[in-house]
């Protein structure tokens, strides 16, 4: 629609009142431009109203294509990305909304731009502008679509080998000497059925590049390569050939801990792509191709650089016994938290009764739970390697010791397992976490035992004594995995228990070096309302009564 904007004439003489029609039902109004200093100019600016305005969409300002990547705060199409139209539904008239747009354009963009106040802004959002540069150069026949890094930037520039994965067309900027490379390749499955060796010039940079400092031509890149690489590495990059004597793909990776920029150099082999009924080859590039990068190193994927404890977790090996409704999501959580190695022991297979509260679903019915869990986690989280053992704890202990295990987590709920672990911990003192849930997940407990602390009190298993609710005999208690009936509970109710146990597990893993921590029990206890809903007349034990009035409460106790 075109609006009558004549009310703005006096206040805003720059606005041209004759509406122009643009593609997609967009209405545009030209804006007069001031006289520019050399280098600050752009060809045109328009106020644009999308189809359906004012009921739908927001008004915006669009600048001519010559301004993209020359002037900050513009997206690839030249649309100004500053605060403007608040949009429909907030009580503003269309006229007021347009005034917001024009005010923003004038005061937050045009005047500051002419004054030079926006000149440093490219650097603040460098990767957004790089994404525009990459998108501008992209085509369907590009040999490479992106670069994944799996380690920290080097301190000195060097040439290393990497892998191009086909048909995914992603380059991993590391070779199989790093375990994480293999894990990534495996996780991609058929998307990485072919691996091609490539060369990567891995060069640390001190500052994020901006449109005025990033390399724009082969000679710009050449200058960097020659200036930064040791001469032997430089000539290796220049003269490398594949085993068949053809040119190989070469990538320049320029990065620091904050940002990374990559280019595919011209001169690689032709790109061969699967097309309808056959393959099609496209000639190699004649100029460098800018590429986006993604960080797949654990510090980033696990903690977005906010968690220094991840490097410690990466070195840890955790043994998890039991992979049921509690064990399976706990394994998932500690994998997500960046624990380097997890061995999972469980003899059970996935059945239809498990679906409602297990990490796995119907697609895993009939599979060993541990195998399916390992497959799922190994392909989803490259920071972690899960080794499955489809056997009972007793069998596992016959074949293995705890010698290279840092922390043991028992989530079987089985009294026998607790006794077996107690025995083996006499020879290999390791921190132990025992986690379980009470019926209906009315409570859940994580008992954290330091390396030298025993679980059994003489011959007595203290598990029942540690519980929060007084359970009448009528409530049938069946340990999961045993026989016919299971307490009914939702996965959502169990999620509280999962979170409790997973947090405790991570605390223990992070502190496992300090063997002298106090053994404690942390419990999640639901309140009276929850108990009443599930069974009439249930009461809390004395120590847990604090939870009565709440929906749920976490309580800490010393292990007796």
């Amino acid at each position, binding site marked *: 629609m075109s609006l009558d904007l004549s009310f703005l004439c006096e206040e805003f003489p720059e606005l041209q009142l004759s509406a122009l029609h643009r593609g997609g039902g967009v209405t545009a109004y030209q804006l007069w431009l*001031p006289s520019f200093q050399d280098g*600050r100019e752009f060809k045109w600016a328009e106020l644009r109203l999308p189809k359906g305005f004012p009921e739908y969409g927001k008004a915006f300002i669009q600048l001519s294509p010559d301004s993209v990547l020359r002037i900050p705060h513009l997206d690839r199409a030249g649309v100004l990305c500053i605060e403007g139209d608040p949009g429909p539904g907030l009580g503003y008239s269309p006229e007021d909304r347009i005034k917001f747009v024009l005010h923003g354009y004038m*005061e937050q963009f045009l005047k500051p731009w002419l004054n030079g106040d926006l000149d440093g802004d490219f650097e603040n959002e460098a990767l957004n502008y790089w994404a525009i540069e990459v998108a501008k150069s992209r085509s369907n026949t590009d040999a490479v679509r992106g670069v994944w890094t799996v380690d920290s930037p080097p301190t000195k520039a060097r040439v290393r080998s990497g892998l191009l994965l086909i048909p995914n067309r992603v380059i991993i900027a590391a070779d199989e000497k790093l375990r994480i490379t293999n894990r990534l390749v495996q996780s991609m499955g058929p998307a990485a059925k072919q691996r091609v060796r490539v060369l990567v010039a891995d060069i640390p940079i001190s500052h994020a590049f901006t449109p005025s400092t990033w390399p724009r031509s082969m000679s710009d890149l050449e200058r960097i390569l020659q200036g930064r690489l040791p001469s032997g590495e430089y000539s290796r990059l220049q003269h490398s050939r594949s085993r068949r004597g053809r040119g190989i793909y070469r990538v320049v990776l320029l990065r620091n801990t904050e940002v990374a920029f990559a280019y595919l150099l011209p001169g690689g082999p032709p790109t061969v792509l699967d097309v309808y009924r056959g393959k099609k080859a496209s000639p190699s590039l004649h100029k460098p191709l800018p590429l986006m990068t993604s960080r797949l190193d654990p510090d980033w994927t696990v903690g977005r650089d906010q968690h220094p404890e991840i490097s410690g977790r990466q070195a840890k090996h955790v043994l998890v016994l039991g992979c049921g409704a509690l064990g399976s999501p706990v394994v998932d959580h500690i994998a997500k938290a960046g624990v380097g190695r997890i061995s999972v022991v469980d003899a059970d297979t996935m059945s239809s009764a498990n679906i409602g509260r297990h990490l796995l679903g119907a697609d895993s019915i009939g599979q060993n739970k541990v195998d399916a869990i390992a497959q799922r986690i190994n392909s989803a989280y490259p920071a972690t390697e899960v080794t499955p053992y489809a056997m009972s704890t007793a069998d596992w202990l016959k074949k293995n010791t705890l010698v290279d295990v840092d922390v043991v987590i028992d989530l079987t709920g089985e009294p026998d397992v607790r006794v077996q672990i107690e025995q083996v911990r006499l020879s290999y003192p390791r921190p132990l976490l025992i986690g379980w849930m009470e019926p209906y997940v009315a409570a859940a407990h994580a008992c954290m035992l330091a390396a030298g602390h025993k679980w059994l009190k003489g011959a007595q298993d203290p598990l029942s004594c540690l519980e929060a609710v007084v359970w009448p005999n009528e409530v049938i208690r069946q340990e999961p995995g045993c026989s016919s009936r299971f307490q009914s509970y939702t996965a959502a109710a169990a999620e509280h228990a999962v979170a409790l146990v997973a947090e405790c597990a991570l605390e223990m893993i992070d502190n496992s070096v300090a063997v002298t921590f106090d053994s404690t029990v942390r419990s999640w206890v639901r309140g009276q309302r929850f108990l009443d809903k599930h069974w009439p007349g249930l009461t809390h034990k004395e120590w847990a009564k604090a939870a009565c009035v709440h929906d749920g409460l976490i309580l800490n106790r010393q292990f007796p």
Partner: protein
Amino acid sequence: MSTTKSAELVKHAELEYPTRLTKSLESFAALREGYITDARDRLIEYGLWAKALSEANSHIAVDEEEIRAAADAYEEVANYLASNLSWPLKSISIMTQGSVSTKTLIRSPNGSEKFDIDAVCKIDISHIEADDPMSFFESIGQALKELEAQAKRRCWYIPFTGQRFYLEFTPSIPLNTITAQTLSSMAPRYSASRYEETALAVVDTPTKSWKTSNSAGMSKWVNDTAERRLIRSIVMEAYANDRAVASVAPVPDQTVEITDTLRVAIRLFKRHRDMCARRGVIDAATKPISVIIVTLLTSCYEGLADLGRSFEHPIELLDELATLMPHLVLKLDGKYRVDNPTVEGENFAEKWNDDDGERYKSFMTWTNALSADLQTILALKDPSAISRRVREVFGIPAPTGGGNGLTTIQPPAPRATPASRGLA
């Protein structure tokens, strides 16, 4: 003519027959081959490049006002020191050193970053008893405690929150007031030099010992050298007398014009080095340090003056400086040498000799890039193309202004508090 050390350095550099950047540029044919004979016409021709370089130079120079603000700050530091130290006020003197005192301080490529003001605090040791270097250094730091001073290798760093600059404050004692015994223990290589009277002893904290330094001498050397005229007088007169020629009229409000060629070269070349580090062409950790650039350019300029050379325009001189500079690095007995002309025996390029050649490589990469980039500027003749290229090469934003007549539109009612985002 007596040959000075700088003159010898220039002659040595010339033995390698470096070619002028403009040697084969088509754009320079008319000047080079003498097709233009009239002095004024030649000036106008040179002015094409001079104007653009002068604009770049004014952008990167830190203006007097900002430096004055810093001067107030270091006077404040002096007062702090005087009131907090038990030493008499007359024994303490504070002066700027480095690029501030040579007027070659430049902005960082990202204008929002701070620039550093180097100041040296000289304590006359004859009035005090602090003979132990570390306790002397620590007592200065203690006196600066309220300013949040942090110890660095040889100075105290004062952050000055909220200001555009920070201060690096180097405690020192005049070299000529200390005993011969201490002197021989601290600097066996020291001997008299041209700027002996300003030589200082500063504390090198890693080795807990005194080290010689002569920042005042260095500044004086640069400033003395910059005063020497290398541009033939006919050109200077044309500059002075013919302001009507717009393209060569000096830019007003400019403290140092491109006729101040040594300082212009120092500023532009340092800026180019900073841009090379930003572009990833050289490693920021091994980039050539400013004092090396200053020493090479000043030696080169001084050597040319000592040899009685003259140039008809600052552009020609800049060309000569850029051409000769890389050849002024000496390699004697397999060691790179860039000697401090004001302290005998101090080699600014010391680190180049035990880093597997990385710093030397950075230096050569940079000087090659500088020459190549200057050539791309000098190869152009269209004034706006020259300006654009100069801005690209030196990372200078486009000139500002021009929005004065724009309307101010009032936003409608105050905006409702925008809905905030939840964590998802």
